[in-house]
């Protein structure tokens, strides 16, 4: 099983024309969309309190005080929701040797020359970057966020610590929003990706083109299962 590090629960191939490949279970998809909605709401409410020109966004949340109240609670929801995603996806996001090669040929990635890239598993180096940077940023955001959640936690830290926390929170949030833009753009740019998170499956061609190693593993597993059913 050592080669199947990146095959996740529920991943399987369905032969046919075209081939379809199950990529995300219903649980993973619901988990993802809860995280996604939380992140968008957090970005909107956070930006409203970050820059005066964006203060009007508090209108979406029922005004300034309600924005101030609701933002940290959505943060708590996002933290636990993302933690669920982390438990599901961390193993398949471990760094592999081909990821370095893939990253070194980032020009070929951006210009669409996939034939020059190494075969990669369920996630390529770009997706792994999104996964690990979001994981790290969310830990930073929840920690600094609790420090500046004055209504409940103001007595536990000094004003100087809160000043650092609010600055780091803002910088981490900017990084997270930027990573999110990369994530969303990649999903739009690479056609056939979004259905993985809506219906849960991709076409065989998509898997062949972008995650051939993963596809080979799944096919190998399926044929192995067929040949030795009594195992």
């Amino acid at each position, binding site marked *: 099983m050592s080669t199947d590090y990146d095959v996740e629960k529920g991943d399987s191939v369905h032969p046919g024309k075209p081939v379809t490949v199950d990529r995300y279970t219903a649980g993973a998809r619901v988990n993802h969309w809860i995280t996604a909605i939380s992140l968008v709401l957090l970005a909107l409410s956070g930006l409203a309190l970050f820059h005066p020109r964006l203060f009007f966004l508090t209108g979406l949340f029922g005004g300034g005080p309600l924005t101030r109240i609701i933002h940290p609670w959505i943060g708590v929801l996002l933290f636990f929701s993302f933690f669920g995603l982390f438990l599901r996806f961390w193993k398949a996001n471990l760094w592999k040797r081909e990821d370095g090669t893939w990253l070194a040929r980032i020009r070929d990635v951006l210009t669409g020359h996939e034939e020059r890239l190494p075969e990669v598993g369920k996630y390529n180096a770009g997706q792994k970057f999104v996964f690990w940077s979001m994981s790290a940023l969310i830990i930073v955001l929840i920690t600094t966020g609790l420090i500046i959640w004055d209504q409940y936690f103001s007595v536990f830290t000094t004003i100087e610590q809160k000043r650092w926390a609010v600055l780091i929170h803002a910088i981490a949030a900017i990084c997270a929003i930027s990573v999110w833009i990369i994530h969303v*753009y990649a999903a739009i740019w690479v056609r056939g990706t979004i259905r993985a998170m809506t219906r849960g499956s991709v076409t*065989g061609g998509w898997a062949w083109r972008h995650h051939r190693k993963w596809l080979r593993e799944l096919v190998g597993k399926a044929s192995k299962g067929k040949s030795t059913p009594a195992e």
Partner: protein
Amino acid sequence: MFPPVPNPTTQPVPPKFGDQDLIRRSASTVTPPAQRQTEVAKLIDVSKCIGCKACQSACIEWNDTHPEIGINTGVYDNPHDLTPDMFTLMRFTEWENPETNNLEWLIRKDGCMHCEDPGCLKACPAPGAIVQYSNGIVDFIHENCIGCGYCIKGCPFNIPRISQVTHTAYKCTLCSDRIAVGQGPACAKACPTQAIVFGTKDEMKEHAAGRITDLKSRGFANAGLYDPPGVGGTHVMYVLHHADKPEIYAGLPNNPRISPIVEAWKGVTKYAGLAVIGFAAAAGFMHYLVAGPNRVSEEDEEAAEKLTGEEPRP
């Protein structure tokens, strides 16, 4: 003696300053008025204070706050800190002067300093929750306050307090409502020794100079005025008998300024942050225009079908 602010007429008078006199408004840009009003100031002469707390009582009465009944922990400070219901506080320090070996009882009336460059206002994200009038008064407008606590992080003097009842921030208003109709602050009115006096900033500096000369003649060689330039000067000033070491007065900051962390957060981070986000979005858009979508080809699908053992397509 500095002449006290005379009692005003009992006839209603229009307020002397208002929204048209704002020189700063939090999270907004204002056009400052062409003519700045005469700057006012409160001068607190620490050497004349007897610690009677009449100023605290007057403040409570005028602002109609209801501080909680506290407990005695063996110190004179009561309450033990500024609260959303206590805008000013006598802080008592027992200090042994190393030069004379005398015990000096230092009593400083703490409260908002009404900085010329207010850190609270700089940090505030809510439009119009903190304002500065052209006479120098920094005021909190509660209906615009969202209770985020950013003013606490911005303040170099640790003054604002958030109420757990109304969830908005409170501090000394310099009795802006009294000054608007020609009265002095309630604390100054109540002070029995004229340790607190109120007037224009120039008058207060002049009065302070006289007091400092007097103190120097009595052996306080380092007597001086506390009007810290790091925050552009303040509209509440102290006469200190040991102006060379303000920190002995219950931690009055020596050379206070808006924290560089707050400056970075409200300065470069704000602009660079939005620029980074905008750049990420623009880069994605440009890439899409230049490179176009990355589509799965017919050959990719056929390769997958072959891999899974399907018959080749006709």
